[in-house]
């Protein structure tokens, strides 16, 4: 054994050839808060990786006449003025591999969940130009979020960018997590990017994902609140790079950026330290491009280019419901629609606290299955009428029969659209309950008893009318035969109570 090792070592060393090549070096002029100014490095490229003498990596951001402004990735305490910096000739890239699925990693692709190291010989650049017009196809397949209100009224398609916006504590992350959980068995790889989040929140989310068996198709990228701003800044791009790796193989990917307000803060910090001129709210001039180039990388590719997709669910936190602040308006204009959550609704007990009037999806309805399209149109109408009449609801007795019926239907609709956290619902179940609702089967059920009625209904359908659900799931439409079956099933259920 000893001889074998020695032989192997000899062989390795014999084949070893050193080559001395010309390298460019610079000197650290100034260092502060994660940003270094470096003299020399006359050939440095934009976003090239630079290496300090202690092995720390930095990224060149500002290329000036005789110095380079660089953002340091990782710990910068060991770097001092006068240290040598080498340019590597490589654009910042991260390793990508299937082994990342089920893991928690940092934005540089290193494992931080205490399990084995992730190794890969494939690298993807962090910044990449988004797919062009030729490579794209219009969005046509649904992403089932498992949330009735969203799947019915604000549908999200594969390749779409749907913003989740709302105040703190209104359930933004909950919607994203529910969506990830619902992707189980739907052929979708999910990437959750935590940007500047509390580590406690991240560990809670990872635990919840594990409990619901969702980690098997999920990658969690963490730039915690105590990590440097540089990590927060690059983490969404890392997520997009990993997503592109899977998209290039023709797979479907869902990325949640939680949240882009903190991403903008991190970039503002770096820009200000780099002495770039501040603009509105002290954000730098390219803050719009920062988000647009990131979100533009979500796409549905044409079959000729593999047919993969990246769906993005960016999250934005507003202050006191102010959607007209700088960053929210920017991101609203970039995305293909928004899911708007309201604190008032949340406290009224309507959860998810979706404001149906302000939430839109600009492409999603093309991606709904036919059955859902059929029932969702009526649902939207019922709800819109209800909202108009809601103000009169308190004069209950003075209203004519028709108006009262509409108000009663509206109340039941609101009740049906409520849904618990971590309880995503299959699309066939959603279709059947909404069908029951819009066809008046619930009109004689008391509002307080609706949720119980619904829960029992799903149980009944699952145990004794499974074939109807299966028909909806496979045929994806509501033809006369299925409608008749559904009517019969609902009548039967009503007779049991």
């Amino acid at each position, binding site marked *: 054994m000893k001889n074998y090792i020695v032989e192997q070592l000899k062989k*390795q*060393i014999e084949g*070893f050839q*050193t080559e*001395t*090549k*010309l*390298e*460019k*070096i*610079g000197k650290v002029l100034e260092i502060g808060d994660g940003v270094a100014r470096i*003299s*020399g*490095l*006359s050939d440095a490229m934009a976003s090239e990786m630079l290496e300090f003498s202690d092995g720390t990596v930095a990224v060149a951001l500002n290329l000036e*006449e*005789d110095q380079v402004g660089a953002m340091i990735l990782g710990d910068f305490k060991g770097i001092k003025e006068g240290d040598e910096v080498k340019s590597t000739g490589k654009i910042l890239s991260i390793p990508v591999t299937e082994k990342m699925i089920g893991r928690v990693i940092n934005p540089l692709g290193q494992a931080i969940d205490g399990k084995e190291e992730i190794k890969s010989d494939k690298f993807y650049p962090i910044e990449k130009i988004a797919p062009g017009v030729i490579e794209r196809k219009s969005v046509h397949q649904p992403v089932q979020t498992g949330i009735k209100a969203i799947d019915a009224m604000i549908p999200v398609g594969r390749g779409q960018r749907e913003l989740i916006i709302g105040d703190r504590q209104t359930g933004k992350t909950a919607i994203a997590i529910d969506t990830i959980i619902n992707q189980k068995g739907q052929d979708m790889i999910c990437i959750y990017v935590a940007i500047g989040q509390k580590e406690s929140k991240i560990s809670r989310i990872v635990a919840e994902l594990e409990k619901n068996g969702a980690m098997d198709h999920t990658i969690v990228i963490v730039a915690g609140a105590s990590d440097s701003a540089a990590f927060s800044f690059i983490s969404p791009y890392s997520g997009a790079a990993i997503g592109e790796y899977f998209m290039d193989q023709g797979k479907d990917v869902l990325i949640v950026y939680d949240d882009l307000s903190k991403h903008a803060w991190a970039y503002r910090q770096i820009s200000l330290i780099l002495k770039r001129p501040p603009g509105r709210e002290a954000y730098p001039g390219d803050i719009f491009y920062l988000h647009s180039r990131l979100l533009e990388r979500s796409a549905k590719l044409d079959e000729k280019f593999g047919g993969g997709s990246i769906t993005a669910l960016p999250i934005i936190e507003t202050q006191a419901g102010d959607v007209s602040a700088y960053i929210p308006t920017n991101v609203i204009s970039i995305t293909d629609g928004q899911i708007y959550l309201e604190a008032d609704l949340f406290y009224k007990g309507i959860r998810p606290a979706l404001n149906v009037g302000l939430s839109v999806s600009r492409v999603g309805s093309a991606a709904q299955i036919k059955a859902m399209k059929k029932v969702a149109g009526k649902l939207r109408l019922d709800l819109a009428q209800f909202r108009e009449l809601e103000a009169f609801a308190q004069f209950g007795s003075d209203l004519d029969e028709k108006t009262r019926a509409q108000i009663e239907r509206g109340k039941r609709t609101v009740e049906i659209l409520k849904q618990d956290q971590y309880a995503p619902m299959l699309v066939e179940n959603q279709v059947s309950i909404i069908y029951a609702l819009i066809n008046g089967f619930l009109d004689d059920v008391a509002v307080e008893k609706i949720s119980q009625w619904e829960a029992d209904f799903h149980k009944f359908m699952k145990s004794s009318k499974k074939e109807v659900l299966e028909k909806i799931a496979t045929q994806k439409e509501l033809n006369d035969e299925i409608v008749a079956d559904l009517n019969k099933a609902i009548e039967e259920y009503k007779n049991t109570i």
Partner: protein
Amino acid sequence: MKISTKQYAEVLYDLTLGKSEAEVNIVVEKFIKELVNGNQIKSASKIIEKFEKIYNKNNGIIEASVTSAEKLDKSQMEKIEKYLLDKYKAKQVVLNNEVKPEIKGGIILRVEDEILDGSILNQLRSLKSKLI
């Protein structure tokens, strides 16, 4: 508009180009006065540094340093100088010899921000990264 140190250095070079020593003295004196008036005397050292660079560049002079584990003898220094003259098409090379025992052997050549690392230490490092 603010005048950069590089612009000052370039002006100084243009003014002194082809002048005799006596003329240069007058130019430099006036230049210093201008610096004081412009409140730029604090950046004098930077201007000098830049001026040296501009002067060297225009006259084909390169400053280089060679790091070795032991002090290099004259014939070795001459060889290196000749190599640099060829490589950079320079007229004159100002070569410094730095002695650093920790590089163990070989030499490290450095010209401005370029470095050619042929030390044993560097080779050992790359061997290490290959083996692990």
